[in-house]
């Protein structure tokens, strides 16, 4: 279970970082979302992964740590709000700047430059 969990987090983080480094706003938003999924899973794991951990006192020998669950809930809510804001901002940027590149202007493609010099 630990290996699978770690692989999931690692894969999500890798995808998230890759997408965040793209030049357009939509992949960046998706990348940030994936990264926040990875982070949420990671926080959840900080309370240790154990099966059949009870929540209510006096019902079992082993208990689940409730704090990471509370933390992860907060992180999800905040991440959700921030992503919503970023989506709106990206649409606004598309309208204001006329394109969806994160720098506000599309870099001139290399082959186009070469053609001009010919």
């Amino acid at each position, binding site marked *: 279970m630990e290996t699978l969990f770690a692989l999931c987090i690692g894969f999500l983080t890798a995808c998230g970082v890759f997408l*965040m480094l793209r030049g357009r*706003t939509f992949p*960046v938003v998706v990348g*940030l979302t994936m*990264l*926040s999924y*990875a*982070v*949420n899973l*990671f*926080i959840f*794991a*900080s*309370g*240790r992964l154990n099966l059949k951990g009870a929540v209510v006192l006096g019902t079992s020998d082993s208990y689940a740590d409730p*704090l*990471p669950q509370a*933390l992860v809930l*907060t*992180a999800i809510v*905040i*991440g959700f*709000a*921030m*992503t919503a*804001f*970023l989506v709106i*901002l*990206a649409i*606004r*940027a598309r309208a*204001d*700047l006329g394109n969806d590149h*994160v*720098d*506000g202007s599309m870099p001139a493609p290399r082959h186009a430059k070469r053609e001009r010099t010919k």
Partner: protein
Amino acid sequence: MNHLILVPILLPFLTALLIMLPPIHYSAQRRRWLSMISTALLLVVSVVLLLTIKQQGLTFYALGNWQPPFGIIMVADLVSCIMLCLTAFLALGAISYGSAGEDEKGSFFHPLFQFQLMGINGAFLTGDLFNLFVFFEVLLIASYALLIHAGGKNKTRATVHYVILNLTGSAVFLLALAILYGTLGTLNIADMALKVTQLPDDNLMLVKAGALMLLIVFALKAAILPLQFWLPATYASASAPVAALFAVMTKIGVYALLRVFTTIFGEQAGPLQGLANSWLWPFGLATMLLGAIGVLASQDFRKLVANLVLVSVGSLVVLVAVQNTAAHAAVLYYTVHSTLICGALFLLADLIATQRGKAQDRLVAARRVNQPVLLGTLFVLCAISVAGLPPLSGFIGKVMLLQAAFGANGQYWLWAILLLSSLLVLIGLSRAGSTLFWRVSGMQKAEERVQPLQLFAVLWLLSASLLLMVFAGPLTELSFAAARQLADVLGTIQSILPGSGVLP
């Protein structure tokens, strides 16, 4: 139980809600006055809290009476109270300036401003690392909306960068918190400081990794060298009152560094003691130098001021790395000075820009400003203070910085770079000033004049420099007391977790 601790968080929160309710929301004047009065009240409350804490020592407020380490606590010590007073002082200036007309260029300026104050105050008061994250997000989401206030291409572009960077920073922050919680089993700052002492060797590297990830996050907020590229564009494109308030945002990063790396990883932390110093020292020096070069290279005055913020952050971070009482006292004094003066400079830059017509604040020959004597005098005073020339507060701050580094490793590096950057700042400012006021061409025709509220705002922030100089004695004593309290980690743990007395 000291309920006063919660007031700096609740007051802006309730004010923001009130401003959005009908009887006030529909009238620009009412919004302005409520916002200003509430901020003035906030300043009074902060000062009262500071005086109370100075008498009583460190006090904490357990929310819902859940005692630490289980509940969430708000901790007020001298350091956080000084920062609260600083924020309220700065905010009053910024809001007064905004109330002169800037606030009507977009919607919800005042509520957002108050929400941001709530976030900033909460970040200063919290005694829990996860709550620090939550308050960071509160102040960040307000700052995103404030940054884009009044709209425009530049603002949109800067906001996109700022939001994406900070969201990434938040993700790293959460990762660091999860690592620290997984190893230390707590997120209460005092309890973490205690748990670090009993850390098994296996977890040492994990905790170190978590701590250094926190360092990355705070370095991003404070804009330290490899993570500072967002700052000049962001601050230069924000509208003036927002930029002035943002002058305190980098200092929140410095405050968090101070909190985490002196309290949690302080003298009691054994092998983890001062683990950030070897990173902060060189990068702080480099930030200072780069900021000074940026001041020389800036094409417009707002960018120049943004680079001044970088210089001040660099010098503060270096001193955080020195880790002694004198250094921390110098950090506090210099934080107050540099924040208020940078805020004043942002406001002044806007005043100059509106009077120069199309040239705005670009450093080129343009038409004469309408009120050269008034703006020129303000500019000279600000420049003297920020460059660190006597007699204003910058000089005292710089002297404290230099003295604090006395005897530290690599003292001569710090002295050389600090003095060199001061010289570069001086050259940059005199070049900018002579261009703005003397290289004039054409006739003056516009009739924009400085409005009384705007003038009040700049004078208010500038008066801080004067006060910091006149009352330098008591204020340095206060910052030394605060630094001693900050360094007294065992005392902090004792007063927050009285039952834990297991320390040597």
